[in-house]
């Protein structure tokens, strides 16, 4: 069964304290790995898409990386405004089929950055 697992569930950091969030996936035929940020009461906000192992993408203090089994979201010198829930999702289109739009989401990591 396709599965995406994120760890830790919650993370508290001091401002400036760098860390990484983990997203482990067990899916067949991964076509893409997506990272989203979700603030309370809002819909998820797109951050990154990674398509192949070894790929890296950066945006401000965030860097996402991908291996064949997991993805990491590295947060460098975080600020309080980085506090949010970070979600990863796997595109599980099977065997080249384009007939499914299902993204398998992890449960998310809730990040709190204290000043």
């Amino acid at each position, binding site marked *: 069964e396709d599965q995406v697992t994120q760890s830790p569930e919650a993370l508290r950091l001091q401002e400036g304290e760098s860390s990484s969030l983990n997203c482990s996936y067990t899916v067949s035929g991964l*076509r893409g790995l997506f990272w989203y940020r979700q603030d309370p009461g809002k*819909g998820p906000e797109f951050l990154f898409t990674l398509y192949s192992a070894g790929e890296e993408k950066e945006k401000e203090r965030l860097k996402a990386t991908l291996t064949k089994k997991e993805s990491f979201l590295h947060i460098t010198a975080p600020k309080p405004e980085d506090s949010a829930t970070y979600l990863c999702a796997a595109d599980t289109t099977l065997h080249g089929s384009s007939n499914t*739009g299902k993204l398998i989401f992890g449960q998310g990591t809730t990040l709190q950055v204290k000043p």
Partner: protein
Amino acid sequence: GAGVSQSPSNKVTEKGKDVELRCDPISGHTALYWYRQSLGQGLEFLIYFQGNSAPDKSGLPSDRFSAERTGGSVSTLTIQRTQQEDSAVYLCASSRRRDTEAFFGQGTRLTVV
């Protein structure tokens, strides 16, 4: 608008009543998705539209749930005879194509009392 718009933002309904949730996707986006997010749960896939067709309805939890999309644009998710377990935030997303990033609306919080 520039983003995905959902209405209403909040809906409180009595058990047994029908509700309709609306989604206006980003203009030009051919793919549209509905997800459900319950308290403390991850996002649960409901249905995927490509144009006006729904090639994947596998996530609809029961036959009380249905959705349609017209003109390759607006979509409506209908829940008939609502139950308390239907209470959740219903999120709509759209993407330019099936395999590109999806952009989410702010969601409709449904409460069944």
